[in-house]
C-alpha cells in the first residue's frame, strides 16, 4: 500500500496497463513534456516513446476521430482532451462515430478507446473550463461513463476503462487531482465498471453522488450524524451503467433518496436516478445540483454555484421533516 494522489494513481494505472499491453497508447496535447494537466502522464513518454505517448496538434476533432480509427484498427487508444469543455469540439466524433460504429456495422467493429475528459470546478477557471457534462454521455447508447472519486478508484477504474472493449468516457474531477489516498500496488485487478461504492452506511436517507461531490456529501453526512440523522452515502463511480441494485437496495432500506451532483441540476443525471427510484419504489426523492448558470469566475460567484454540505444538510432535514 502506498499513499498517492489521485493524479499519481491515474498515472500508475496507465503505466501498468501500457506495460501489460503494447497496444495501449495515448494521444493529446502536451502529454510529453508537460505530462498532462496534472502530471497524470508525466515521464511516460520517456518510458514508452513518442509513438505511444503522442503529443498532438491542437486538433480536438482529430484527437477523437483518430482514436476511433486506431481502435477500429486493433489498438487501445486513450484520447486525452484536457477539459470536458474542449471535448465538445469533438462531440461528433465521440457520439456519431465511437459510440455507434459497432452497432451500425452490425457487430463487425469494436471501439476499445477511452475518451478522457476531466470535469468540474477548480479555482476560477470559469465558464469554458469548469463544466460537468457527464449526463450527456449517459444519454448516448454505446458509451460507458465513469467518474472516479478517489485515488484508488482513479487507478482501478482507469484500468477497467482501458481493458473495456467499449468506448469509455472517463471523467476525472479536476478538483481531486491533489487528493491523497491509499493504493494497493500489488493488486492489479480492475474495479468493475457499473459497481457503486457505499461510502457510509445509514438508515434514514440515501445520498447518491459521484466525483468530487462524494466528499461533500460525506461531510454533510458527518454533520447529520451529529444531529442523530444517519445518512447512507453511495458513490456511483460509473454513471453508465449505474449500479441500480445498490441504489435500490439502499433506498428500499432508508426510504428516501437525495441525489447530489456538481453539474447543473436541470437535465443532470440526478433526474435519471431520482426518476428511476421514484418509479420503482414510490418513495420521496430529491435532487441537488448547480443552478442553471454558467460557472462564474469570481470567488463569491463560484462559491454561490457550488453545492456545499450545509445545503445538503438542510435538504435532508426538509425531507425528514
Amino acid at each position, binding site marked *: 500500500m502506498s499513499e498517492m494522489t489521485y493524479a499519481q494513481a491515474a498515472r500508475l494505472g496507465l503505466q501498468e496497463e501500457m506495460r501489460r499491453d503494447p*497496444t495501449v*497508447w495515448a*494521444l493529446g496535447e502536451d502529454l510529453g513534456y508537460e505530462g498532462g494537466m496534472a502530471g497524470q502522464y508525466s515521464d511516460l513518454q520517456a518510458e514508452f516513446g513518442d*509513438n*505511444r505517448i*503522442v503529443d*498532438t*496538434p491542437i*486538433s480536438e*476533432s*482529430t484527437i*477523437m*476521430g*483518430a*482514436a*476511433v*480509427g*486506431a*481502435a*477500429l*484498427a*486493433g*489498438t487501445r*487508444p486513450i484520447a486525452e482532451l484536457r477539459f470536458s469543455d474542449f471535448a465538445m469540439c469533438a462531440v*461528433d*466524433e465521440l457520439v*456519431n*462515430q465511437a459510440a455507434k*460504429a*459497432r*452497432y*451500425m*456495422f*452490425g*457487430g*463487425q*467493429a469494436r471501439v476499445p478507446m477511452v475518451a478522457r475528459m476531466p470535469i468540474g470546478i477548480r479555482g476560477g477557471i470559469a465558464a469554458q473550463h469548469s463544466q460537468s457534462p457527464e449526463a450527456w454521455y449517459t444519454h448516448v*447508447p*454505446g*458509451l*460507458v461513463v465513469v467518474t472516479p472519486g478517489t485515488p484508488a478508484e482513479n487507478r482501478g477504474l482507469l484500468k477497467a476503462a482501458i481493458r*473495456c*472493449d*467499449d468506448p469509455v468516457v472517463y471523467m476525472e474531477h479536476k478538483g481531486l487531482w491533489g487528493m491523497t489516498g491509499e493504493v494497493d500496488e500489488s493488486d492489479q485487478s480492475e474495479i468493475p*465498471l*457499473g459497481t457503486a461504492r457505499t461510502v457510509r452506511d445509514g438508515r434514514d436517507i440515501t445520498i447518491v453522488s459521484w466525483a468530487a461531490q462524494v466528499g461533500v456529501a460525506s461531510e454533510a453526512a458527518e454533520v447529520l450524524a451529529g444531529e442523530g440523522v444517519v445518512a447512507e452515502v453511495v458513490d456511483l463511480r460509473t454513471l*453508465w*451503467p449505474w449500479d441500480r441494485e445498490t441504489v435500490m437496495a439502499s433506498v428500499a432500506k432508508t426510504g428516501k433518496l437525495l441525489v447530489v451532483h456538481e453539474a447543473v441540476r436541470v437535465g443532470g443525471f440526478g433526474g435519471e436516478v431520482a426518476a428511476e427510484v421514484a418509479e420503482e419504489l414510490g418513495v420521496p426523492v430529491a435532487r441537488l445540483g448547480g443552478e442553471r448558470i454558467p460557472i462564474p469566475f469570481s470567488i463569491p460567484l463560484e462559491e454561490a454555484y457550488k453545492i456545499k454540505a450545509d445545503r445538503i444538510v438542510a435538504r435532508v432535514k426538509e425531507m425528514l421533516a
Partner: protein
Amino acid sequence: MTSNLANEPARVAAMFRKMLVIRAFEEAAGENFFVGHVRGSVHQYIGEESIAVGICENLRDDDYLTSNHRGHGHSIAKGADPRAMMLELFGKVGGTSDGKGGSMHIADFSVGMLGANGVIADGCTISVGAAQAVKLLGQDRIVVNFIGDGGINRGPFMEALNWAKVYELPVLFVCENNQIAATTTTRLVTAGEGIAKRAESFDVPAVTIDGNDLFTVDGTAARVISEIRNGSGPQLIQAMTYRLRGHFAHDDAGYREAGEAEAALAHEPIRRTEAWLLENGLSQDELDGMRDEVTAEIAGYVEDAKQADWPDPSLAFTDVQDVGAPAIPGVAS
C-alpha cells in the same frame, strides 16, 4: 500518367466488369428505392466507377479503406460482397450489418472496408487514426480515405491532412471532385484553387487527374500507393469526375444546366473503358455478354433481398456495447 494497364487487356476487362457491377448495383438500388423496397438515403456512384475500381485494384485486401455517404462503389471495389450489400439496403438478415446500418453504414471489416459514413469528413480523422495504429503495430498496410469536393471544406479534413503529414502516416486521400455537393456548386463555396493546392500547403503531395479515365487512375494509384507503402508519407489524389445522377436517388438534379448531364455522358468511365476494350480485342458480343451476366447477377441479389427474412426485432438490442448493454426483450437478463 501512363499506366501498364494498357498492356493488360484481361486486367482491364476484369476491372471493367467490376465497374459494371457497381453501375448495375446502383441502378438496382435506385429502382428499388423508388418502389419502396429500399429506404433511407441512397447516394449513387453512377459515373464515378473508374475511381474506386482504379484505386482499390491497387490495394491489398488487408489495406484499410474509409468512405463517405456515397460508399457503395468504394465498398464493392474493395471487395465487399454486393449481395450482402443489397440485403443491407433492403434491411434484411444477411446484410452487411443485418439491417442495422443501411446504405450509409456499409462496412466489411473482412476486406478492410472500415465503413461508409453519414457524417461528411469524419472518415478522414478515422483514417489517420487507423494509420497510426498500423504504424504502432508495425504493419505495412496503407489506409485510403475517399472524400468529396464538398467535404474538403470541413475542418476535420484539414486537421487530418496536417496530422497525416506530421506523423508521416501511410494514408492516401482520394478527393472525388464531381464539382458539386448535394445541390451546391462547390466552386461557389470553395476559396482558392482547390484541394491540390491546399494539400501542398501541408507538404502533402497532390496530383489532379481525370478520374473518369481508368488507365490514369490505375497508373496514378499504382505509383502513389507503392510510394506510400515505401514510406513517402501521406499523399492526395484529386480525381476529377462528374455525378451523372442527382445527389441521392430522390433528387432529379433540376438545378443543372440543360444538357450538362447529357454532355457528360461522352466522358463517363464505362463508355470510355468499353470503347477501349472494343479497340483492344474484345468483341461487342463479349461485352454484351458480360453486361448481361452482371445485370443478372445483381437482379439475383435483388431477388434474394426481397425473399430474405426481416431481422427479428430483438436484433435492435444487440451489439450496442458490452458493459451496460440494453436488455434484449424476451430474454431474461
